[in-house]
């Protein structure tokens, strides 16, 4: 394909060319910034949670009337909940998957220069393992003998813990974690690892640091009137949403109590990604509309040019050009414009993305995605050109013989 005549014709239509290139490049810039930020959000969204979060209900109840006996009330809660048909397991806990933001630094030795490892700690009843249906991968399960449940403030913390698969690997690599000793703070009491369980999502903080599954279960509930544990309840498959209200009314059977959160863990998971998610959604919708408008605009312009150049096209056909040559002419012209526009757009994108990455401390840059976007812009614009160009190919060579 001879490119020179196309360049010449573009030069003749300087204004139109510049307008189209600008349009393509701005579309490219908006589109790719939106897609790059969305990709990062989606990447986090696709992380497996490790639990059947659709069947697990979280309830956070609190006594505003401090004269009520919390210990007795919690026993009645457990009885009522277990008696409810459809409930399969219940656990009291101080941390909830997807919002376990209490990050602790733990150590493998008690020495001054020990290296810290970040993890989320689930202080909970051992039944948490049943509620979340975590699999035992190594060692033994925590038993009720390991459990420390006390509201007097007199007890020591639990001495045995289980760690998640990811944390075990980060700490001990190929070695078994079972039997190892850990310190949950510098100079604190040591705890013994008795088993390893399958991974479960912790929360945004660790997720953002690439340690989404670093967790540890310590079987203790050192509750007080000011520090009430939450409830996680697993119900029959598919009854999650239906049972929330039933459970809430159980909690309101106690006087002087307020139920704060009552939701499926699915909703907690959704909340984990909300801030970026909604922005990404808006950007994505805008870019889709923008791309459509650009494509339609290009189709319109090509159709106009086809009409403008009827005579030239006829002449070329008369001189022996095939139909495919005519179509190819328009496609090549559009390709030049699209690529040049995309190049400019990509530069603007890089500029925007570096700024965003610095602000959000997140690496949005993804050259593969930019390449794919350019490719799809090219394809869509090519289709937008091809449709009207087909008409051009149908122009009969005989048109030359007419007067105008």
């Amino acid at each position, binding site marked *: 394909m001879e490119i020179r005549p196309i360049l010449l014709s573009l030069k003749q239509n300087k*204004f*139109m060319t510049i*307008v*189209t290139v*600008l*349009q393509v490049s*701005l*579309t490219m*810039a*908006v589109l790719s910034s939106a897609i790059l930020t969305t990709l990062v959000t989606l990447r986090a969204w696709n992380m497996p949670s490790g639990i059947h979060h659709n069947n697990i209900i979280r309830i956070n109840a*609190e006594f*505003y*009337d*401090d004269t009520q006996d919390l210990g007795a009330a919690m026993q009645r809660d457990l009885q009522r909940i277990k008696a409810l048909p459809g409930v399969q397991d219940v656990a009291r806990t101080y941390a909830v998957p997807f919002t376990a933001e209490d990050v602790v630094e733990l150590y493998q030795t008690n020495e001054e220069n020990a290296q810290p490892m970040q993890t989320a700690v689930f202080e909970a009843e051992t039944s948490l393992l049943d509620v979340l249906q975590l699999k035992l991968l190594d060692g033994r399960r925590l038993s009720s003998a390991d459990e420390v449940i006390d509201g007097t403030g007199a007890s020591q913390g639990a001495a045995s813990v289980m760690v998640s698969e990811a944390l075990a690997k980060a700490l001990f690599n190929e070695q078994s974690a079972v039997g190892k000793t850990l310190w949950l703070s510098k100079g604190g009491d040591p705890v013994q690892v008795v088993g390893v369980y399958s991974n479960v999502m912790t929360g945004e903080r660790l997720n953002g640091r690439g340690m989404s599954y670093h967790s540890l279960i310590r079987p203790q509930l050192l509750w007080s009137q*000011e520090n009430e544990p939450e409830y996680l309840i697993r119900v029959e498959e598919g009854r999650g949403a239906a049972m929330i209200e039933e459970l809430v009314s159980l909690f*309101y059977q106690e*006087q*002087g*109590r*307020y*139920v*704060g959160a009552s939701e499926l863990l699915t*909703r907690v998971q*959704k*909340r984990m990604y*909300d*801030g970026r*998610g*909604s922005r990404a*959604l*808006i*950007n994505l919708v*805008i870019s889709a*509309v*923008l791309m459509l*408008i*650009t494509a*339609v*605009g290009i189709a*319109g*312009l090509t159709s*106009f*040019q086809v*009409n*403008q150049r009827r005579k030239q096209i006829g002449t070329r056909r008369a001189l022996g050009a095939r139909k495919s040559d005519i179509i190819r002419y328009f496609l090549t012209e559009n390709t030049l414009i699209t690529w040049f526009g995309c190049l400019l757009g990509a530069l603007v994108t890089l500029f925007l993305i570096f700024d965003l990455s610095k602000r959000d401390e997140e690496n949005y840059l993804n050259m593969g995605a930019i390449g794919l976007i350019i490719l799809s812009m090219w394809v869509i614009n090519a289709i937008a050109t091809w449709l009207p160009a087909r008409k051009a190919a149908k122009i009969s060579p005989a048109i030359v013989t007419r*007067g*105008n």
Partner: protein
Amino acid sequence: MFAYNFSLALRSLKERPALTLLMLLAMSVGLGLFVTFYTFAKNGSDIPHGDKASTLYLVQMDNRELSADKIDRAIDMPDTTYRDAVNLYNLDMPAIHQTYVMRTWATLSFADNEVRPMQTRGAATTADFFTMFEPPFLYGSGWQLAADSGDSQVVLGKTMNDKLFGGINSVGKRLLLNNKPVTVVGVLDTWHLSWRLYDRGYYQGYPHDFFVPVQYALNHNLTRDTRFDCWEADQPQSSRFTNQDLDILRASECGWLAFWAELPEADPAQYQEKLHSYINEQKAYGRFPRELQTYVLNIVEQMDFLNANYGEQSSVIMALLFYTVCLLNAIGILLAKFIRRSKEVSVRRALGARKSAIILQHTLEVMMLGLVSAVFGLLIAVLGLKAMVQIRLWASDYNARLEDVMPYFQLDWGLALQAFAISVLCALLISIYPIWRLCSQPVAGYLKSQ
């Protein structure tokens, strides 16, 4: 002649309707999106508290230790300590009113448990708060000055009154606040503030549901839901101050209250002078070890800073880019449409029509386009704003209430008129080059081959 040109313009719009429609589509979608984001950004940057914004001053003083980091902006300043708040409040300062505000939350319920208890956010402050910030009252009023000593009185927000009392005049009625009886003295009407500054919370769309005297809040140990700016040595314990160790907190150098002064004729210099002499007196007790640094800024000044740093300009810029693309798109189509008409124009010119007539005809055509696309654009904006409300509620996980979020996404007549003007202006702008091209071609050029 005008009528003739008008009918010509109309006819030319009708020919090649697909191109006209395409242009309309591009222009109205672009305008719609731009108006959507612009409305949101503008409503979010409105200056709260209306006429009083320029007379209400936030008082800030740097009471931190010598080793603390230097502060360059008012927003980074620590809050006011309890000691200074009480001292300044009781001092004869050159202010019309003074008040201080603490953020809190509590559970509201009834003794008979008929309505489920509700936990919600509120503010603890003094009687003058209502005189200074002028919240609109539906029933009753703020509490009397005497109640500042810690009376069990409460002012409810409209939403809370609707939920607890079904919206009736509840003044004089009693309810339980953290299980202790309080009496309603006033009910607010809807009080939309683009930014909630009075407690230095900087929230958008989360109004307080109740107000109690600050002394009541302290006596009954309501949660102090605030940040404590303590000296380095006290910082580790500061989280305890949320609901414990009130006496230590009162005596400490921890800042946690927002202190406000209403000043006459927007002149803070005199107040600041008095504030400086107060601080210098306090130095005698070993306080305020650092170089004198105070800010007395009114709400207008604070909003200027917030809008410049935390506004929604990036969305507006993006929407503007979007509109630009749509306009570029429209230029191309307009050019295509006009150039097709070269022959017709040449004939008209040859028959004696003046350049100005040609310009008039096409300007009219473009203005009509601008007007129609403004109508469609506004329609799109209304739908877009509705969608934005839903997204906002979804993003807040339905913790924000519809009635609190709505005001940020409300299109008003002023904005709608502006949109019309922008649309017509942009239409004229994009038509300059196509019309110029149309008029500047030689008359004879197209007549030759006829």
